[in-house]
């Protein structure tokens, strides 16, 4: 009985099952990941050598814009929601998410939102071309007509995210099994709970920003036009008030993932559980008062620059606590290095490198030299790719046996890891150098002094593109022909999903709540 479910297309269209919805989120985000990745390939092909070889600058700008938007809103965020859907009910001993129909709706909005956004590529004037940060007035007065589709697409994604976040909060507060107190929850649930609050706080701000753009474009307002009494810099304040918490929205769930995986393969409890929870909460709170560090060059008063510089550097403290805790978890453990662990370890190392360049960028007087160069591109790709995306990848390898009851091929998983590790660094490390040498971001062509670094980055990027196909094949092979997984596939794993549920998990779980002591 517990495995009964509808079949065919209706199973997916009308499902209210958190596992099905989680699966759809994950596949959707992977499709978007490949789409955004294909755009990155166009960008890197054009930048492979000096001169314009493949695309016109106008199309190049559409590619950088769409790549950013699709990766942020289409790949990283939905992948995290997919993990939340799969894991949160199982980890807190709940039968499903608290609001299952809303869950269905928040997923099914996304394909329409991204169809709308992607359709702009085929419109007259082309797709949005003003960067994923869409600074006014380039995105208002000077933008292509398709910008309105972008605006409504962002609205839809925002509605989807807000509903997803409400669902997580309501589920965590109301659906925990008896005995599952807040401070007993797995760290993944904690990081997602905090992420959900961030989402609810900032997605409406983003909606406000795009609505103001819409009225500036069509209804005669001048929010961002100095000629009508507005201020283009106000756009940046509003955008980054959303945008900075947004970067933590993308990374906090990944923190949660590695906080589950590192203890499992260290065969040792997570070091400093409560300080991990408090550090996550501090990072989230600080993320609201640092937004203007993206705007040091806009001509802020020096007092403002000092405030935002110091507040930003403070974030290094709770982030440091987390990294030290992960290291201390491994310390004197009994380590093995299966694929999820390899991805988690490289997450810690490479995210730390991204954190270092983050501290450098926070220092306003030097930021004038880094700002809007490839150094920034290197920085945020280091926190997003080996950060958020390695985190998700580690999660997929770690929980795949639980989700599907099948094991991936460990050799293929390790090859995937080493390909990822080599190509991520080959792609993004040289960008530090081209940025320091003075190459601005978002340019389709450059002086020869940047040629060598760009060539390396492009070679790395093509390799990284191929790696994703390899990942897809590895996963499909596991799902189709993988060896049968154990109920507790990893001897060091803890938590309800491993201890109280078989592999694969039945369609309906925890119809009666488990006992937690």
């Amino acid at each position, binding site marked *: 009985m517990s495995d009964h479910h509808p079949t065919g297309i209706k199973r997916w269209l009308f499902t209210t099952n958190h596992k099905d919805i989680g699966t759809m989120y994950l596949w959707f985000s992977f499709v978007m990941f490949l789409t955004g990745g294909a755009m990155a390939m166009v960008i890197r092909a054009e930048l492979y050598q000096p*001169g314009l070889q493949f695309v016109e600058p106008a199309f190049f700008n559409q590619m950088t814009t769409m790549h950013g938007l699709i990766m942020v809103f289409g790949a990283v965020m939905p992948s995290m929601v997919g993990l939340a859907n799969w894991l949160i009910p199982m980890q807190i001993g709940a039968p499903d998410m608290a609001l299952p129909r809303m869950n269905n709706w928040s997923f099914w909005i996304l394909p329409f939102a991204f169809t709308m956004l992607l359709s702009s590529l085929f419109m007259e004037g082309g797709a949005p071309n003003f960067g994923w940060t869409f600074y006014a007035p380039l995105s208002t007065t000077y933008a292509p007509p398709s910008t309105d589709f972008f605006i409504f697409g962002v609205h839809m994604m925002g509605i989807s995210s807000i509903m997803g976040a409400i669902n997580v909060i309501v589920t965590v507060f109301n659906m925990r099994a008896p005995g599952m107190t807040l401070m007993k929850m797995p760290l993944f649930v904690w990081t997602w709970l905090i992420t959900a609050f961030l989402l609810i706080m900032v997605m409406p701000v983003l909606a406000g920003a795009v609505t103001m753009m819409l009225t500036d474009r069509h209804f005669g307002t001048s929010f961002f036009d100095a000629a009508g009494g507005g201020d283009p810099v106000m756009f940046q304040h509003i955008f980054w008030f959303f945008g900075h918490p947004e970067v933590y929205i993308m990374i906090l769930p990944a923190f949660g993932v590695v906080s589950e995986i590192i203890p499992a393969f260290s065969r040792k409890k997570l070091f*400093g559980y409560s300080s991990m929870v408090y550090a996550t909460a501090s990072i989230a709170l600080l993320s609201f008062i640092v937004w203007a560090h993206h705007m040091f060059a806009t001509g802020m008063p020096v007092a403002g620059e000092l405030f935002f510089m110091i507040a930003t550097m*403070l974030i290094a403290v709770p982030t*440091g606590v987390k990294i030290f805790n992960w290291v201390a978890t491994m310390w*004197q453990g009994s380590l093995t290095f299966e694929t999820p662990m390899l991805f988690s370890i490289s997450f810690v190392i490479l995210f730390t490198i991204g954190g270092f360049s983050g501290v450098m960028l926070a220092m306003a*007087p030097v930021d004038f030299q880094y700002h809007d160069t490839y150094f920034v591109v290197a920085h945020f790709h280091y926190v997003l790719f080996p950060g958020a995306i390695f985190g998700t990848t580690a999660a997929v390898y770690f929980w795949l046996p639980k989700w599907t009851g099948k094991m991936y091929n460990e050799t293929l998983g390790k090859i995937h890891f080493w390909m990822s590790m080599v190509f991520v660094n*080959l792609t993004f490390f040289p960008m530090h*150098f081209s940025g320091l040498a003075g190459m601005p971001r978002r340019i389709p062509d450059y002086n020869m002094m940047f040629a060598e670094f760009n060539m390396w980055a492009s070679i790395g990027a093509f390799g990284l593109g191929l790696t994703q196909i390899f990942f897809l094949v590895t996963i499909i092979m596991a799902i189709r022909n993988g060896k049968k997984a154990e109920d507790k596939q990893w001897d060091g794993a803890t938590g309800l999903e491993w201890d109280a549920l078989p592999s694969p998990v039945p369609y309906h779980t925890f119809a009666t709540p488990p006992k937690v002591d």
Partner: protein
Amino acid sequence: MAFQRKLVAGLISLLGIMLSSGLHAAADMNMRPGVTETSIAAYDLHMMVIWVMVWVSVAVFGAMIYSFIFHRKSKHPVPATFSHSTKVEFIWTIIPIIILIYLTIPAIKLLIKMEDASDSEMSVQVTGSQWKWHYKYLDQDISFYSNLSTPPEQYEDFDHQGTDKGENYLLEVDNMVVLPINTKIRFLVTADDVIHSWWVPEIAVKKDAIPGFINETWTNIPTPGIYRGQCTELCGKNHGFMPIVIKAVSKADFTAWVDTKNAEKKAAADAAAAAAAASWDMDKLMALGETTYKSTCAGCHGVTGEGIQGLFPALKGSPIATGPVAAHMGIVVHGPSSKKMPAFGAVLTDAQLAAVITYERNAWGNSTGDMVQPSDIQAFKAGN
């Protein structure tokens, strides 16, 4: 496992290749110290943070690597059971705070200095527009546009034949910003259309150019030389094609340059007046019109007048370029009501305006046969 060891070896040799290929370009791998007091201070701060980060990495990654080697299951089969230590956690909260204070103090000092543009000896207004810079020397009454001077033949390589590129490819302009050395120069940075950003790495000045607002920054260059930079805020199609070139010269050379510029300005004004008074024939108008069109209009409307559908209107066969002359002149001189195109009335001379309008009305099959004389432009401006 064997394949794993091979992969590690491969990774290391790949990194080796990268480093060795990077080494001969080692000078380009790091930030350049630049030439001004502030740029050198920024560089020193950059190096200070890098070294702090290197030592933190050694400690953190060192501990991790130690764990990987000595705490692996084969070496350390029974894991320890500790899971927190208030003392240790307190220490590694305090140490980063101390490191951050150590980094913040020089940063605060430098920032306050960099943002103090008071007591400047001269002022230059820098205006960004799509996609060129305009410089106005407020004390010398000189102003000019500065355009990319790399010809399109060098960067357009769509047939993959490769092109010969000069040393300063994409970093060269027709009119350099000439500045005196050992002078505190204030820059007033603004923009006409979208946000641009004026950056010259060697003097560590980067300031956003924001339409409707004026930002202030400054420099004091001690050594003569040519310093190159680029626009660093995405500003549309040709964002990658609006470089900045500063030529720093001695004070005497600067005075000489100002005199030359003023003489040129007077000669240009006289020539413009003479040209405006003269009656031009079609060939002359078309010739000047083509040059003006290519340098001023082709960036958006395209060399063949076809524009980009949906973004920049085509002029070929357009109702404006083939309709009444007055409406055409209105748009070129005053800009369109949408404000998407700047007004060129004060940017081009009357002769250039007349020529470019004539060109647009007769090129690419727009065979209206209309000729616009500089005197027509004068009359049009007077009439409005």
